[in-house]
C-alpha cells in the first residue's frame, strides 16, 4: 500500500495501463505542453498530445481512434466540457458498436471532474452521472476513494466500451491507501463502506464522506446505518443494494445532483420495484435542490446535501 492523494491515484491507474498496453493514448487540453510532462516523457508524442479547446473533435477523434484499435483516454478536466460535445458522448461513442451489429468496438475513457461545489457557480459544478447512466452502451464510474480512483481508471481503460470516468473535484487532494502494482477494481461491484442493520444509506463520490459522517452521528443515537458506495452507476450493482434492503427495510439515498436528474431517483425506482414488500418505510432521497448551483457560499451550502440533512433523513426513515 502507498499513501497518495486521489488525483495521483488516477494518474497511477493511467500509468499502469499505458505501461502495459501501447494502444493506450492520453490527450486533452493543457496536457503535455512541455517536454518534461510526466506522461509525454514516459510514452512519447505518438501517444500523449495536447489538444486545442475543441471537445467535439477531441472526443470524436477518440471515437475514431478507438474504432481503429486504439484505447484513448481523453482528459476533459470539467464534466461540463463534455456537454460541448454532447453528440459524440451520447449519440456517437455508445452507438457505434450496436449499429454495426457488433463489428466495431469503442474502448475509450472520458476523464472528467465534477461536483466542484466551492464557488464555481452554475456552469462548473454539476453532478452529471445520471445524464450518462441511462445511455445504453456507456459505462459510468464515480470513484470515492484514492484506491478506487486507481482501480476503476485501470478497469475503465481495459473495458471495451466507452466509459465516462467522473472524478469528484472536492476529493482531489484526499489522501488514501492505494495498492501498489497492478490493481483493478471491477465495474458493477458496490462497496459496503460501513456495516449496519437499521437503514441502507447509498451515496457516491464526495457524498460518501458525508453519508459516513452522518452514520457516525447516528451511531451515537443507537442507529446503525449501512453505507453503500456503488462505485459505478452503469453498470449498477443492484444486488448488493437489494441484499442490504432485505436486512434493513429502510433506504436513504444521497445524491449531489438535483432531484430530477439524480442517480438516486433511478435507484429508488429499482428498489421500489424489486423490494416493495421488504420496505418498512418510504424511500427517502437527499438530493440537491432542483436548481442551478448558486455562486454565493451560503446559497451553495443551502442547495447541496450536508451531514445534518442526511442524518435527519435517516431519522425520518426510521420514524
Amino acid at each position: 500500500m502507498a499513501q497518495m492523494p486521489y488525483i495521483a491515484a488516477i494518474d497511477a491507474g493511467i500509468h499502469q495501463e499505458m505501461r502495459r498496453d501501447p494502444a493506450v493514448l492520453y490527450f486533452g487540453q493543457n496536457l503535455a505542453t512541455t517536454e518534461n510532462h510526466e506522461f509525454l516523457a514516459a510514452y512519447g508524442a505518438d501517444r500523449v498530445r495536447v489538444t486545442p479547446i475543441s471537445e467535439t473533435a477531441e472526443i470524436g477523434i477518440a471515437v475514431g481512434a478507438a474504432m481503429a484499435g486504439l484505447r484513448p483516454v481523453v482528459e476533459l478536466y470539467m464534466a461540463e466540457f463534455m456537454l460541448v460535445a454532447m453528440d459524440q458522448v451520447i449519440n456517437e461513442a455508445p452507438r457505434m458498436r450496436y449499429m454495426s451489429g457488433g463489428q466495431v468496438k469503442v474502448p475509450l475513457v472520458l476523464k472528467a471532474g465534477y461536483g466542484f461545489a466551492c464557488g464555481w457557480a452554475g456552469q462548473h459544478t454539476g453532478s452529471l452521472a445520471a445524464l450518462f447512466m441511462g445511455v445504453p452502451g456507456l459505462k459510468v464510474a464515480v470513484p470515492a476513494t484514492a484506491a478506487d480512483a486507481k482501480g476503476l481508471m485501470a478497469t475503465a481503460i481495459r473495458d471495451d466500451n466507452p466509459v465516462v470516468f467522473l472524478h469528484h473535484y472536492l476529493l482531489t487532494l484526499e489522501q488514501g491507501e492505494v495498492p501498489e502494482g497492478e490493481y483493478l477494481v471491477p465495474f458493477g461491484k458496490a462497496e459496503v463502506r460501513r456495516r449496519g442493520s437499521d437503514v441502507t444509506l447509498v451515496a457516491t463520490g464526495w457524498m460518501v464522506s458525508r453519508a459516513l459522517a452522518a452514520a457516525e452521528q447516528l451511531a451515537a443515537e443507537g442507529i446503525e446505518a449501512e453505507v453503500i458506495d456503488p462505485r459505478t452507476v452503469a453498470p449498477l450493482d443492484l444486488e448488493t443494494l437489494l441484499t442490504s434492503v432485505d436486512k434493513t427495510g429502510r433506504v436513504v439515498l444521497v445524491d449531489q445532483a438535483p432531484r430530477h436528474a439524480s442517480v438516486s431517483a433511478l435507484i429508488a425506482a429499482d428498489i421500489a420495484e424489486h423490494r416493495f414488500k421488504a420496505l418498512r418505510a418510504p424511500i427517502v432521497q437527499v438530493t440537491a435542490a432542483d436548481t442551478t448551483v448558486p455562486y454565493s457560499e451560503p446559497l451553495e451550502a443551502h442547495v447541496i446535501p450536508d451531514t445534518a440533512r442526511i442524518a435527519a433523513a435517516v431519522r425520518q426513515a426510521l420514524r
Partner: protein
Amino acid sequence: MSLQPPDAAQRIWMLTQMLRIRTFEERVKRTFTDHPGVIRGHTHLADGAEASIVGALSHFRAGDAVLATYRCHGYPLTLGSDPGAMMAEIYGRADGLCKGLGGSMHLTDVRHGFLGTSGIVGAGIPHAAGAAWAAQIRRRGEVVFSFFGDGASKQGAFHETLNIASLWKLPVVFVMENNGYNVVTTTSQEDASAAAGEPLAVKARAHAMPGVTVDGTDPLAVHAVVGEAVERARAGRGPTLVESKVYRLSAHGNIIAPPGVPLHYPEHEAIAVFGKRAEYEAALRGDPVPRWRGVLVQNGMLTPAGADELTARVLEEMERAVSFALASPFPDTACALQYNYA
C-alpha cells in the same frame, strides 16, 4: 471613411476606463490576500487587455449589446456598471450585479447593454450572433460586440457562427483577444494558423468576412479597426473578425483548489511553465495602461498632476467598491431557488 480619430476628451475617457479596469482587478487580486476566503471559485483578469476593451467599446452606443467570456470584468466597467455591485457579485453578496448567483465568471448587466457571459469557451459567440439577429430585425443600426479569446477559435461554435453571421450579414463585430496562451498552452501549440506563422485573423477568410489583426495594446489602433467594423455592421454589410493582440499580464486565473487550500494568483505561465521570463518582462514593459498615460501626458492632453489626480480618484472609487461589497450581506437562502424559470 467617416471615422474620426478620438478627440482629447475621448482619449482621457479611454485612460480613465483603462485605469478603472486595472484598479478594479488589482482589488480583486488583492482580495485573496486582504480578505482570504471572500472570493471563491475562479476569477480571471483582463490586465493587459484594457486598451483593447476600451478601444473597442468606445464605439458602443445605447441599444448595442456586448457578450463576453468568463474573463469579464472590464466590459461592464467600461459600459457604466457600478463597480460596487460588481465587486459584491464577486464576493457573493446580496447587492451583487447578479444577486450573488453568478460570481466573477458570469457578470451580467442588461441595463448597461452587457447581455451575458459564459464560462464555457466559445459558447458566447453564437449568443452574440443571436442578439445581432434581433438587432438586424429592429433596423435601428444597432450592433453586437462579441468578445472571446484566441482559444475559442478552435471551437466548432466559432466557425459555425462566423459562417452564419457572414451569410446573413448580421451586425456583429467579433473581437478575438489573442493573448498568446490558452491556460497553459501557447497558441502555436494548438492553432494551425499560428503554427504556420499566420495571424489568427486569417480564419475570417474561410467565412467570407474581413479579418484584421490589430495591436490590442494601443487603444487608438483598436478604435480605428473596430470603428470600421462597427460602421460596416451598422450599415448592414455584415460582420468582421478583429484579432486584437494583447498579453495577459496575470496567470490564467487564481489557482484551482478545493476548500482548505488558500486561493491566490500564481506566476504567469510564461514563467511558471515555460521558463520564459524575458518574454513576460517584455510584456510588462509594454503594459498598455502606463503607456497610454505616457502618451497623453507627452501630447499635452493631460498634465502629470492631472493624471495623478485621475489615478487617485479611480483608486478611491475602487476602495469604495471593496468597502461596499464587504459590507453587503449574503443573499437570503430563498434566493437560491428563485431564478431557474422566468
